[in-house]
């Protein structure tokens, strides 16, 4: 109700010529000015031979992050109706195919190649991972990174897969699978790869760029990006026909707990391996789990005080919130700070989820409320709580300089800019992609198909055989 009016205005706004022009202009200006501002911070790290243990950290980390995608499929799938569970799971699972291929063909190149010399986008020189890893795949990534380049490309690919998969949470039970296919393909190329470039690939947002923000393992690139895209997509595509009047409880809460367990497990790879070095990976491993623990506890305690009962869904949700919150900070903070991040992220996400329910916005499985909001809280808290000792100038020249000169407040400003830029870039980009896509094909299925269930409609399957014999 409340939200429906907002949505109406938004949709009208999106069709407004003037507004669109302004948006494009802003994007163009950003693209133009960015490079001018781009700092020339350079690191002077030594080229060391590939290290076995560090490389193994990346490889095991890759396996762990790969498992997060099926984990997510269960975390999400448990919430849906039985007639939509396969479609929901496929929205994640299928991306292990689509984005898995896309990444090695071109996505990696757009993110980590330097061919274009742009602070926004990589290049085409590393398509098909051309030149990555050398003849035996054992060449080190770069000076200061004695991990094999192949392990890095693989590890990053797993991130590229799960990011759009996260978006699906906002869109389950109504989106056309064909539209989802094209959306993910385009979004990965036009939004994800540039984001990775800008933040991690030496682009203008990151520690080598003009803004100097830090993002340890994907607070902006993964969580804010997916969260904001989810918000915009849910707004444009609209709520399920059953929302909010005929909504149903989760069909299988144990699946949600299984998914959350696998996600937590995989997150050790996600954050821990983002340290790229096993000797110093103790902190990101530790902070990851302590933040998750603190957030799980916080969420449940809030429920307990407020509603009288801590819930299993709440425990799973709280843990994920804590994992999201610590992601941008994992290697930059000590254990105490990670507890704080977990507590604050859980509290803020809890409120966000309740607000969503109150305004009856159909971000169906709370992708924005957890990943967008949680990622934002985490990214900002990273600025406030990062420790100088953990942001070495060798690896994060501009960020270290900011910390040196203006302390955590300075870094907070940088983080704030990074967050705003991410919101703007992703929101705009996602909206544009969906406009264009929406002109070419229906974005959602018909109400009849929605009632029938997407498992049959989109895949010709049913998740469970009702005949038990």
């Amino acid at each position, binding site marked *: 109700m409340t939200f429906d009016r907002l949505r109406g205005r938004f949709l009208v706004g999106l069709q407004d010529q003037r507004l669109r022009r302004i948006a494009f202009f802003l994007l163009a200006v950003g693209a133009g000015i960015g490079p001018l501002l781009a700092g020339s911070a350079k690191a002077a790290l030594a080229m060391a031979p590939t290290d076995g243990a560090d490389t193994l950290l990346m490889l095991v980390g890759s396996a762990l992050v790969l498992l997060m995608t099926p984990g997510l499929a269960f975390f999400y799938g448990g919430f849906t109706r039985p007639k939509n569970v396969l479609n929901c799971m496929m929205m994640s699972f299928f991306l292990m195919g689509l984005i898995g291929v896309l990444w090695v063909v071109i996505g990696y190149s757009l993110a980590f190649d330097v061919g274009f010399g742009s602070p926004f986008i990589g290049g085409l020189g590393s398509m098909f991972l051309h030149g990555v890893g050398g003849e035996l795949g054992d060449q080190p990534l770069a000076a200061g990174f004695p991990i094999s380049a192949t392990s890095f490309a693989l590890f990053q690919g797993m991130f590229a897969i799960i990011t759009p998969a996260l978006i699906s949470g906002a869109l389950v039970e109504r989106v056309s699978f064909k539209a989802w296919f094209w959306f993910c393909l385009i979004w990965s190329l036009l939004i994800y790869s540039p984001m990775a470039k800008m933040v991690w690939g030496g682009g203008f947002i990151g520690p080598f760029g003009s803004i100097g923000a830090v993002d340890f393992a994907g607070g902006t690139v993964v969580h804010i990006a997916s969260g904001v895209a989810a918000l915009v997509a849910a707004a444009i595509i609209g709520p399920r026909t059953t929302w909010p009047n005929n909504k149903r409880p989760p069909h299988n809460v144990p699946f949600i707990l299984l998914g959350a367990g696998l996600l937590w497990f995989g997150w050790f790879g996600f954050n821990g391996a983002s340290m790229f070095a096993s000797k110093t990976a103790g902190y990101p491993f530790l902070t990851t789990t302590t933040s998750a623990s603190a957030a799980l506890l916080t969420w449940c305690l809030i429920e307990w005080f407020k509603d009288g009962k801590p819930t299993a869904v709440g425990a799973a949700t709280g843990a994920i919130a804590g994992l999201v919150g610590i992601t941008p900070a994992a290697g930059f903070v000590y254990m105490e700070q990670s507890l704080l991040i977990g507590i604050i992220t859980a509290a803020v996400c809890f409120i966000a989820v309740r607000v969503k329910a109150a305004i009856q916005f159909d971000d169906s499985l709370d992708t924005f409320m957890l990943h967008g909001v949680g990622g934002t809280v985490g990214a900002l808290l990273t600025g406030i709580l990062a420790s100088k000792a953990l942001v070495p100038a060798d690896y994060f020249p501009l960020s270290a300089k900011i910390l040196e000169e203006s302390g955590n407040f300075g870094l907070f400003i940088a983080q704030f800019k990074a967050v705003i830029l991410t919101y703007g870039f992703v929101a705009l980009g996602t909206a544009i992609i969906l406009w264009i896509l929406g002109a070419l094909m229906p974005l959602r299925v018909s109400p009849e198909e929605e009632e029938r269930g997407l498992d*049959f409609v989109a895949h*010709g399957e049913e998740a469970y055989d*009702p*005949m038990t014999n």
Partner: protein
Amino acid sequence: MKMITAMVRPSKVDAIKTALVALDIIGMTVTDSRGFGRQKGQVERYRGTEFTVEFLPKARIEIVVPSAKLDAAIAAITEAAHTGEIGDGKLFVTPVESVIRIRTGESGESTL
């Protein structure tokens, strides 16, 4: 008293309930069932193999009503469950000889 047994589309249960409550009929029992009828079965495919699913999910609703309310109830259900497509389902009326409310032991129409 009569028992109405209606085999309907599962998604119509809520609408039927609402329609009956509007008639002040507070009481019904719903069972997940699978129906076979004129509605064409759907074809599912798993790996190489096709399955024609002939038994489709139906909700089986039972409502015992005082005879006086029978026609109104039937009308309400029929309307709420209607889509016009094959597979909307059937509704059967059968006689009921007595009713007992277990909580109180009372019997008769007043317990409905």
